[in-house]
């Protein structure tokens, strides 16, 4: 009888440990960076990484995640290297964006496609620590009145637009506080039309969206500046894992090591600074 209750207690403890609290730190695992035998992988000896279809610059180049080019591809290979994988041991699969944010078992180790870490998503999946902090950016044509702005004060007299329901709109209203209230659009198509019609001087997007908009959606537009981050908790991009994955801990350790060594900053500089010519617009 005593033994039974002991067993029960152990079982309960195991269940308690296995239940994720939704904070994203995953299960506990002893991992030793550089030794892949300590990792709980989907396929032995292989790091299976999922990404979107298609993938686009500057996150990945030529719609090929396996070439190590582009910010996210480079980060994944750097993380893989920290964990002890050879580049040839990284296997790529493709998934949709939203279909990955559902509860349940996944057939890959983690997913990378600019997932913003949010409380809500964290309820159903797990996230690594952030590998990139989201900043807001200002986008316009090369002849925009926003060219050459160095501080938020330079933007206040301009006509600025954003998409409804975005942190960019909040940024305009709370930080930039332009003289003319922000124009608010349903879609990026409408925002582009307003730029073309000279009804706004510039648009604000978060940086990943700004890259997509300038590269794919609004031909001829450029990122005119990065806006200084506000608040002590900027939104961050993280790798997405299935809920309760024990791999999260190890990937976080790898990310921390990369951050400490300055590797992460170097990769960001190489792929996301657009040659370093995006000026920062201070508050």
């Amino acid at each position: 009888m005593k033994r039974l209750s002991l067993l029960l207690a152990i079982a309960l403890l195991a269940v308690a440990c296995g239940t994720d609290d939704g904070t994203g730190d995953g299960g506990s695992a002893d991992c030793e960076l550089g030794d892949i035998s300590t990792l709980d992988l989907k396929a032995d000896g292989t790091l299976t990484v999922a990404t979107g279809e298609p993938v686009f610059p500057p996150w990945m180049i030529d719609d090929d995640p396996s070439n190590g080019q582009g910010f996210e591809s480079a980060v994944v290979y750097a993380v893989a290297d920290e964990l002890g994988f050879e580049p040839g041991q990284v296997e790529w699969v493709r998934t949709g964006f939203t279909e990955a944010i559902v509860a349940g078992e996944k057939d890959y180790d983690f997913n990378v496609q600019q997932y913003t870490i949010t409380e809500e998503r964290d309820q159903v999946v797990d996230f690594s620590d952030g590998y990139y902090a989201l900043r807001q950016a200002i986008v316009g044509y090369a002849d925009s009145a926003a060219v050459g702005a160095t501080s938020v004060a330079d933007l206040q007299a301009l006509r600025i637009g954003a998409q409804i329901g975005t942190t960019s709109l909040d940024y305009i209203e709370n930080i930039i506080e332009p003289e003319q209230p922000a124009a608010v659009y349903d879609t990026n198509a409408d925002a582009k039309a307003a730029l073309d019609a000279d009804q706004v001087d510039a648009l604000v997007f978060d940086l990943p969206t700004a890259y997509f908009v300038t590269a794919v959606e609004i031909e001829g537009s450029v990122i005119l500046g990065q806006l200084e981050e506000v608040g002590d908790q900027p939104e961050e991009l993280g790798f997405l894992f299935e809920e309760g994955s024990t791999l999260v801990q190890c990937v976080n350790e790898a990310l921390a090591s990369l951050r400490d060594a300055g590797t992460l900053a170097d990769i960001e500089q190489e792929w996301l600074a657009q040659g370093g010519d995006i000026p920062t617009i201070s508050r």
Partner: protein
Amino acid sequence: MDLDRSRPPSAVPSLKRSTERGARSALIAFLSTLVFFGAFAVVVVNSEAWPAFRNQFFNGEVFVDAWPIVVSGFWLDIQMFVVAEIAILAFALLLAAIRALRGPAFFPIRMLVIAFIDLIRGIPIILLILLLGFGLPALRLTGVPNSPLFWGVVALIISYSAYTAEVYRSGIESVHPSQVMSARSIGLTQTQTLRHVVIPQAVRNVIPALLNGLVSLQKDVALVYILGVREAVREAQIITARSFNYTPYVITAVLFLLISVPVARFADWYAERDRERRAGQS
């Protein structure tokens, strides 16, 4: 009125009885309404999800916060609405008058107006707003304004004028041909006939329909939000997108009702008075 003369001598007491009966039916109507809506309210309020529903749609805190913002947007709606309505009533009348002109000399301009009305009525209003609001300014023609507010209102005027012109036309066609013939026979020209005989009667005939269009326009001015204009509905959407709460939409509904209900009551009252007047005349 003839009716009064045909009333039998016992009309006075029966009138009193009918007043009593009227009071009784009013009381019954009142009680019945109270019971009906009371029962409905009790069922709704006691439903399990009511607190969540109330929080989502009738949240007092959100209401207080959003009210001044939505009201400021609504002020823009009213301005757009007044400017547009005046322009629509005038422009549509011009279109209808041209369409009513007879004679081969007016054929080209008549065709033009018919083509315009057919075309505009076939185009979704949202497309017209986008076309004028984003499309025209993108051509960057000198001297052409690029204000989304300006073009949004112009799009509404064009669209509504096409419909309103048809309302006027039905009014013009309801004027008996003998009126036109009489006018012409006393020496009025075609345009004079239109101006002094046909249109005054036509407009009077279609005032309820025009008021109906006015109520409709009052809500459709909100559509210019697609151009980035921050009127009431847009302000409500912005707050909703931020707070995940639909109360701001309820505020816009309340504001729109404050206008549309009096207009609807006025339309009914006017139609009633018009009917009585005509009965009095005949």
